[in-house]
């Protein structure tokens, strides 16, 4: 058992913190949307450890609820990207031939539309909101997942034991499940972790632009937008959500990097 990389341990720790934030938000008696007469309180005020915003809402409660929102959006978006990407990537890699070529071109085209562009399109067509932003972020993640899945399938497909399985008369579905998937799981988990980081950043940006999570649900990006107009009176409602975004993104980035190092056969045993 090789030693776990430092980045993996740090990343896991940060994500554990993020999960604890969500738990704290669920258990906290403070309503993140409740207004109090204590407006623009600085941090360490009695009852408001991180202070309050212009409406007297508790910044800590809102940052915690924002963690819940970020994880929720990230989960759905990565889920969309992973499932669609996996399906298309495996299909392209396993079937090969013209289907592979067509899918590659299609995915390349999708690659030219980053999450923000897709979100602009979807927000124009439907309503700007958490659903459109999740779908946009998820769709934008599809090509990367598909690429990882396709590469994995191609490298596995040529291996002797797959041919053996096929010779034994195993169906495509079973080969896929028993032999191909377990072999590409590692890179996919790495990709999922990195995509999570991207999703959290994208959600924050979209909410900041007013195209993501809608009020009263607290979202880190939207909190930034609202607090921007009075950051001269107090910078804290801008500072804390930004730090929360940074830590969450750092966590998933480190986790992804660490997992990659851990799973990389070249680096094993180093």
């Amino acid at each position, binding site marked *: 058992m090789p030693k776990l990389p430092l980045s993996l341990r740090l990343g896991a720790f940060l994500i554990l913190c993020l999960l604890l934030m969500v738990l704290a938000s669920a258990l906290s008696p403070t309503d993140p949307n409740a207004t109090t007469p204590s407006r623009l309180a600085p941090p360490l005020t009695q009852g408001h450890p991180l202070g309050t915003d212009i409406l007297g809402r508790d910044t800590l409660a809102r940052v915690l609820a924002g963690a819940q929102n970020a994880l929720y959006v990230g989960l759905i978006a990565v889920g969309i990207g992973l499932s669609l990407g996996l399906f298309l990537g495996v299909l392209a890699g396993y079937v090969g031939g013209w289907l592979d070529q067509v899918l590659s071109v299609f995915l390349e085209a999708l690659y030219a539309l980053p999450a923000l562009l897709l979100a602009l399109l979807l927000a124009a067509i439907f309503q*700007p909101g958490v659903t459109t932003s999740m779908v946009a972020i998820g769709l934008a993640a599809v090509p990367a997942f598909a690429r990882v899945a396709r590469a994995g399938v191609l490298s596995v497909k040529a291996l002797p034991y797959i041919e053996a399985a096929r010779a034994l008369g195993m169906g495509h579905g079973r080969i896929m499940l028993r032999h191909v998937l377990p072999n590409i799981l590692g890179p996919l988990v790495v990709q999922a972790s990195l995509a999570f980081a991207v999703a959290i950043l994208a959600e924050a940006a979209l909410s900041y632009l007013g195209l993501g999570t809608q009020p009263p649900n607290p979202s880190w990006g939207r909190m930034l937008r609202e607090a921007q107009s*009075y950051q001269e009176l107090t910078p804290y409602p801008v500072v804390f959500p930004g730090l929360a975004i940074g830590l969450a993104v750092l966590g998933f980035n480190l986790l992804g990097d660490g997992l990659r190092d851990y799973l990389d056969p070249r680096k094993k045993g180093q």
Partner: protein
Amino acid sequence: MKRWFPIVGLVLVALAGWGLAQQRGGAITIAIQTEPAAWDPTQVAGADISRVVYDNVLQGLVKRNPKGEIVPSLATRWTVSDSGLTYTFTLRQGVKFHDGSDFTAQDVLAKFNRARNPDTRASGHLRPDLYRDIANITSPNPNTVVFNLRQPNNDFLFILSRPESLIGPRNRSLAEQRTQPIGTGPFRFAGWERGVAVRLERNPNYYLQGLPYLDRVNFRFLGDGDAQLAGLRAGDLDVIAYSLLPENAVVLSRDNNFRVFSGTATAEAVAGFNNSRPPFNDVRVRRAITLATNKDELIQGAMLGYGTKIGSMRSPGEACYVDLSNFNAYNPDEARRLLAEAGFTNQNPLRFTFNLAAEFPYERRIGEAMVAQLNRLGPLQVSIQVTDFNTWIQRVFTQADYAMTIIGHVEANDIGNYANPRYYWRYNSPRFQQLFTQYLRAPNQTKACEALAAAQRLLAEDAAGVWVMSLPALGAHRARVQNWPEGFLSPGISVAEVWVR
């Protein structure tokens, strides 16, 4: 003896200059909140259109000055017959439009015949209902225009002072007037930098000698409060004309380089019900919502103390105002009792959605805080839906597909909207409609005010909406800007007499 004359004249001019010290020339940039879709208020509705063009570019027969008084503009004086049926206007002579053509009685006739044409698609003119009482318009001589009304209308001069009543050249195409309006005002429309600003330039042929003082005026579109503040600081902006965020007013009032100005406006923040549908067709529920709203807390909280508590659809600055601000005052126990009577309790709460338009910082903030108050009560579970203003216009304003919403009603004298059962509040009260007609047709001001007072009271008793506050009129300008108009009761931001040091 004759020799003395020019010298006396020079001395007089010098003295006048010393006393007033206005300087000609220079340019200022004024921030406004949104970028309108077009610039002709007779064709497209929007408060920011009027703010830019009213009395700066386009003028009407009469105008509302910043104090809200109706004063001469293209008409120098007017008389009203005793019957209240005939209005005779004497037109200003020698006035030219910006394209060099003469302003004549024919332009006035063409304008109001277009305005009162009920076929809006043919006329391209908004609100023909405003001009319905006009029987005919004539011009007995080139200096005079006569309006004959079908019935007396107390609001007629007010209507002529509205942005819809501004006058352009009679031969101008509607499309051109939308993007490049031509009028008789002190400034001509020089250009529209899309997404950035409009530019006005001095009208060198303006009929009032010596005016305007400024060479150029820019109106810059900046919705974000912080961007406005930063622009003012950096010198890119000279004036934030309205909707200065309360927190920014606090910051700027500490700084000698800026002057914060505030006053009464006619903008009521109305948390409106859809009166036609359950649950808000039940007056008990509407009253309960009103009683559950702590207006003082909203003014102190969301608006940092800027704003005036009101209790009906009228602002303290308007004529015939009745103070109902403590009517149905905050009383959560009574609110819960009324809701229980209507069948809503903590166990079986009333659930509904509160619509907010994203673009308006005051209303959004007040709305979010108000929803938090309502949810604190117990028997109410209110969720928020934020949409962009265009969607709001479509869903809420046009189709009345909503339960509750909040928006600022900027227009003066807009209590009459409650007399229209098709207006988005869907408030259908024959008694109110009768009172409002009484007001319009009243033979004198006292009678008119009596009817209007009764109408304000009736609305409050019916709890036809929650009139949260008269929104603050807050602005700021750099100290070098002089003679900024005091008061917010004109539809326009009139800058003819503004000058810079």
